[in-house]
């Protein structure tokens, strides 16, 4: 039986909220033992946030948000007001290969767990800090959240309807983007360590990491001195290229009508002709107003109105089936219900449905890749707060049952 890629790698995970946990989630998926250091005095924000299984907040273990991004990890609950808790963390760090955190800059230093302190006792440690602004530079201590780095990175200035103000991305994109770049970086460092025995520090700035996704906008400025115009869902070189209204969902959800949309793109003139036939407007296939990209761009409002006239009377699934049959790139603008029922995700066994002690069996997003030789799977549901404290204390960390009892009485284990 092949070992998973990161089997035997241990991660002391001081991270919380989203960016850090998304980083260490990947490492857990790949077989690492990820141990989250938590505390009841200040639980991970995501343990407090909805959606909660059962509908109301009555437990730190029922949040879908936390349970999504902490699958396959362990939880060790410590209270750092007590020096003994710090000693526990030190034992964990000494046994770890990787230390991860996404606190504000200096917080790990103040807690006594800065990189210099750690490498003094564990020279080959790999430590990653996922920060809003990075670990150096004049704004090092500025405070940031994922959502603030959407506008800060330039993504908002580039995103928006034509003639409208800057817009957001719809989610806190810099968080998972930092997390996934971070997981790659940690493994690049593990690769280097495997060859040389050397550890290192990885300084990640969410701000910078987001700009790496915006080269087209940034280069428009550095090459031509221009700020790119916001153009909604359109594309300078593809037309049509848009998101079109369909019939609403047939049933209401909580008395609310749910709007449905379809994305349609034609890559060239031939695809436009096929689209014209597929929507029953055969006469438009050779209409000079739409025959070339330049012509379609000139008449794009009209073109989009024609497509909307067809899509708005149909259900999204029927539209996608018809257009895909014609070889057109068309797809549902999926909402979470659509995704949670998507037959393609089912066929690829993407979802994870493990029995969680407080939540039961619920559907979660899984691993977005498949590996033929070292098949990854989510080993366990997200941990209850402190679920693994005792087993880690008496196992890995070498405390006796009596010592654990004493530490708990004192409040060092919370």
């Amino acid at each position, binding site marked *: 039986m092949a070992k998973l*890629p*990161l089997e035997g790698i241990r991660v002391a995970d001081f991270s919380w909220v989203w960016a850090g946990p998304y980083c260490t989630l990947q490492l857990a998926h790949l077989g690492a033992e990820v141990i989250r250091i938590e505390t009841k005095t200040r639980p991970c924000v995501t343990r407090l946030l909805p959606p909660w299984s059962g509908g109301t907040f009555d437990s730190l273990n029922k949040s879908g948000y936390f349970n999504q991004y902490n699958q396959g990890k362990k939880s060790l609950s410590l209270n750092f007001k007590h020096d003994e808790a710090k000693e526990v963390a030190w034992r964990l760090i000494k046994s770890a290969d990787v230390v991860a955190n996404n606190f504000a800059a200096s917080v790990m230093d103040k807690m006594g767990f800065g990189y210099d302190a750690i490498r003094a006792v564990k020279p080959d440690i790999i430590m990653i800090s996922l920060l809003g602004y990075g670990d150096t530079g004049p704004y090092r201590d500025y405070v940031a959240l994922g959502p603030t780095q959407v506008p800060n990175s330039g993504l908002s200035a580039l995103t928006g309807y034509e003639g409208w103000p800057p817009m957001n*991305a719809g989610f806190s994109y810099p968080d998972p983007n930092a997390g996934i770049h971070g997981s790659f970086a940690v493994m690049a460092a593990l690769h280097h360590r495997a060859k040389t025995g050397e550890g290192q520090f990885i300084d990640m700035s969410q701000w910078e990491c987001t700009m790496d996704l915006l080269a*087209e906008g940034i280069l428009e400025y550095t090459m031509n001195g221009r700020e790119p115009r916001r153009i909604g869902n359109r594309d300078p070189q593809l037309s049509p290229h848009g998101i079109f209204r369909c019939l609403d969902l047939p049933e209401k959800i909580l008395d609310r009508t749910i709007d449905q949309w379809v994305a349609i793109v034609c890559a060239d003139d031939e695809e436009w002709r096929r689209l014209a036939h597929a929507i029953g407007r055969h006469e438009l296939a050779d209409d000079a107003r739409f025959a070339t990209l330049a012509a379609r761009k000139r008449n794009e409002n009209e073109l989009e109105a024609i497509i909307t006239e067809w899509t708005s009377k149909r259900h999204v699934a029927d539209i996608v089936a018809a257009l*895909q049959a014609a070889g057109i790139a068309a797809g549902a603008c999926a909402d979470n219900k659509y*995704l949670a029922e998507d037959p393609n995700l089912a066929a690829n066994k993407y979802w994870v449905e493990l029995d969680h002690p407080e939540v039961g069996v619920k559907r979660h997003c899984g691993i*977005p890749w498949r590996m033929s030789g070292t098949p990854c799977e989510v080993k366990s549901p997200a941990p209850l707060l402190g679920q693994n404290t005792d087993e880690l204390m008496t196992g890995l960390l070498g405390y006796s049952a009596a010592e654990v009892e004493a530490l708990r009485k004192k409040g060092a284990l919370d």
Partner: protein
Amino acid sequence: MLGALSDLKIVELGEMVSAPYCTKLFADMGADVLKVERPGVGDRSRTRGPFPNDEVHPEKSGLFLYLNTNKRGVTLDVATPEGFGIFEDLICGADILVHNVPPPEMDRIGLNFDLLQRVNPALIMTSIVPFGLSGPYRSYRSEDLTLWCAGGVCVLNGGGPDHPELPPLKAFGHQAGYQGGVHAATATIAAALARHRGEAGQHVEVSVQESIASQLEMTFEYWPYSRLIATRHGQKPVQPAEMMRCKDGYIYLCCIYEHQWRAFVEIMGNPEWAEEEIFSDGPKRAQNWDALTVFLEEWVSRQSVNDLYRKAQARRVPFAPVSTMRDLLNSEHLQARDFFVDITQPVAGTHKYPGAPVKYSRTPWQIRMPAPTLGQHNAEIFGGQLGMTSARIEELTRNGKI
């Protein structure tokens, strides 16, 4: 100093963003990446720009030049048996193949792992595919926009409570491609780590749809946990968390916690309206956002972005500017961290590009060479590495195979 990945040899058969971004992450850390392009036309991103002085030219595309740093390039028509044979020779000497050829096209040209593993038993092959290698959408045509929508993030953006008629709004650029690429890089480096300690080569399949769906925050779970459909039309849980116009640009106001709001009120000079009961906590400010907007806009519109940004940060309130490209290039912080890098490519000239996604204390991220011109390394690779005679290279070139 060598990069962390300088011992890895990678062949990329990539178009546009996903596979090229995946291998760029490796190349910028030292890996030897060979990019295989179609003879004559090359990677489609060469047509995308932006182009210096708007001159459309296959060697001057900003997107291509950004995504293909530190790679060598050859041209080869892998869709012909002869070309595929040469491709197999290239695979023989590689650790990793990364491609984003769609599944129907893979079938057509015979690109499959079992075959390539016979050629190179230790090979790691990474297939970045829109919807997976199996499943009912396997052969779906897709573009970046349709994949961004398929992953479930696009529906969350745009419109807002007052504009239900507006469509969901894509984020700028080719974000589905980037996410497919970086998720593939994560799985691929893991396969390389496994191989380094004795596991065999293997096939890594990465779904772009799943890579995006994995980033839905709590949104996905609203259905299984609460039978709710997340929407862009609703009101935010707390306010302010919005962009607003200053006298010289936009700023993002962000008060998640009460102490941040109190600090903002102080910065505004403790106006009387701020003490109204309807603004007394985050959820109330969200419910009464229309009323609050009127007061805030009146004050914010008289401020300068930078001044308000600094005042807020001085009190540890996480405001941020809505940066223009110019703001980014001129940022003292980004300059101090040497984020932007000058890259010179002989045809396109010297321009500033976004730099390292992270900084490593020991193994450098570095630009050793610019993106290749089309077929730039044909002689070096086909002659030097594969040992073809110049007569053979000439013949293949004449026939359009390379």
